[in-house]
């Protein structure tokens, strides 16, 4: 950390020479981030998974829902790189299609939880009047048993929403929404703590003294400074949302079988575990690798965004 080996100082000097004297905050963050091998690997794996899921269906052009009952329960082959399931559907195409849904759920739920968390955190930290009430609300949400409640909400509202918006959009919106509104509490707490200390700093006082309105102070001076904890919670939020969605699907209360996610594929595969164990392996591996890479990215980001770790002189 502070007693960094000489080589890294040399390296930094060299980089400085190359880049001139310009060193932005994000340049520093990136330089620190690059030293974290795990984080770099995480980025590589995550980008690979995202690209595979996004572009894969254009290369492997097999319809994931195409039934081919003659070729059921096959092992890996050139035509079906991950084999086929008990109805002869191509597993590779299903894993790719499931990945699109799983990743979309992860990112969308993370965005909702970040928005609520940031809003609650900033309001509670900046406006003293709301602090007590909002933090009590956060505590109440933290005391809710999340997984049982999620299961119950999905069970009860699934059919109604399916009728209202359609089977796929309905369940997608429901799952994203319930994961989002039950996972914002940590973000809110961290943001509130940071806002509380930022609010007392001179630059905020200066802004206020020239008559800047509260919402402008929040947007221009407070929010950019709490960006780093928000970014770290964003990565953890994606990982958490993907795991929660898979857990729900795994318990049979997530996405329907004709609109599979990785969790749903795992759930369906579990019944054929003895016959074709790779049906469990591939979706499970996809979930684990995604979550692992996202967590490593979050770890590296936390180190890189921490000024004490960055070792600036």
């Amino acid at each position: 950390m502070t007693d960094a080996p000489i080589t890294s100082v040399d390296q930094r000097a060299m980089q400085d020479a190359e880049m001139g004297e310009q060193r932005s905050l994000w340049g520093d963050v990136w330089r620190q981030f690059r030293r974290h091998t795990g984080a770099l690997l995480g980025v590589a794996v995550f980008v690979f998974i995202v690209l595979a899921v996004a572009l894969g269906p254009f290369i492997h052009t097999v319809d994931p829902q195409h039934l081919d009952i003659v070729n059921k329960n096959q092992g890996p082959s050139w035509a079906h790189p991950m084999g086929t399931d008990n109805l002869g559907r191509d597993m590779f195409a299903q894993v790719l299609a499931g990945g699109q849904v799983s990743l979309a759920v992860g990112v969308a739920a993370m965005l909702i939880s970040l928005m609520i968390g940031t809003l609650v955190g900033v309001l509670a930290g900046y406006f003293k009047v709301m602090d007590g009430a909002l933090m009590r609300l956060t505590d109440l949400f933290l005391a809710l048993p999340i997984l049982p409640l999620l299961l119950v909400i999905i069970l009860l509202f699934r059919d109604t929403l399916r009728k209202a918006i359609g089977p796929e959009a309905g369940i997608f919106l429901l799952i994203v929404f319930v994961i989002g509104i039950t996972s914002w509490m940590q973000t809110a707490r961290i943001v509130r703590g940071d806002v509380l200390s930022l609010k007392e700093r001179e630059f905020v006082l200066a802004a206020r003294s020239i008559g800047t309105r509260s919402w402008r102070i929040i947007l221009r001076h407070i929010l950019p400074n709490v960006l780093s904890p928000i970014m770290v919670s964003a990565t953890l939020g994606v990982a958490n949302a993907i795991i929660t969605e898979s857990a729900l699907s795994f318990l049979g209360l997530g996405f329907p079988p004709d609109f599979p996610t990785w969790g749903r594929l795992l759930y369906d595969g579990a019944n054929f575990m003895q016959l074709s164990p790779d049906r469990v392996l591939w979706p499970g591996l996809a979930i684990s690798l995604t979550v692992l890479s996202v967590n490593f990215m979050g770890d590296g980001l936390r180190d890189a965004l921490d000024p004490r770790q960055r070792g600036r002189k």
Partner: protein
Amino acid sequence: MLRYTIRRLLLAIPTLLFISFVIFAILDLAPNDPTGQLPLTIPAEVREKIRESLGLGEPFFIRYLKWLEQFFINEPLNILDQAFGIQIGNAEERLRITSWATRSPIVDLIIERTPQTLMVVGLSYVVAILIALPIGIISAYRQYSWFDQFGTFFSMVGFSIPTFFTGLVCIIVFSVYLGWFPSIYDTTHKVTDWDSFVFQIRQMIMPVMVLALFNAAQLSRFMRASMLDNLNQDYVRTARAKGMKERAVLLIHVLRNSLIPVITVIALGVPQIFGGAIITEQIFRVNGLGQLLIIGIQGADIPLVQTLTFIFAILIVLFNLIADILYGILDPRIRYD
């Protein structure tokens, strides 16, 4: 300390009332018909009778208050009656919370299921603590050594891979290919002699280890961070300077202080193991509380789900309180009053 405890206990009452209201409202206001699963041939007036017999004729708030009365007054009185063999008031007239699916009192169902959950899930938590503490201590003491690197990686992996995947992989490897352990947990199995004891151990190994590894991954990171915080403190240097053995410095001075935050984390995790066990119990077919909840949810057994979810909430509030109080007792620098 006592004043603080009493204040927190009093504060827990509105919290729990609010949570009970949320749980009740979500389940009650949902567009869901408890007679929806019955055959379509049942005529509408009979359907209405069934709804009334389930207690659905009353307005929402009456039902909420009745449920509260049953949960907080009737059921505890019943437990007291049974425990001491006495009669408080009119026990026959007392309305109990009954499950719609089995028509039996829910508390009885819960009492029936609790031992399995405690046995598997509780043991896994103990195993997790036993694994996590040494890993955390050694990782922190030899920071950046290969052991530390490996430990950090291990905890990252354990923390990222969901239990429903590790559980299934364990079943494939150890039950399907190697045939060492049974994949289904047999709850009717009774331990009478050595052989049945060995069987019990064999069927418990997989669920316990899967859950333990997941919990150990998180705890070991906390332990490591907490040890690192303490290892750089002045009192450690003092202890070394006055010539204490390294072993004593580490295991008496540093460990004791580092355990304070870890113990609160452990206390906070206890309610989560009940909730988190839902998935593990489902994989290994342990018929504990988690599976009871899943059965209730699948069968739309609203009273059962309400009661179980609320019990989970009580556990969370209670262990939050316990964690805070433990923190105050263990660390004399922390004063709540």
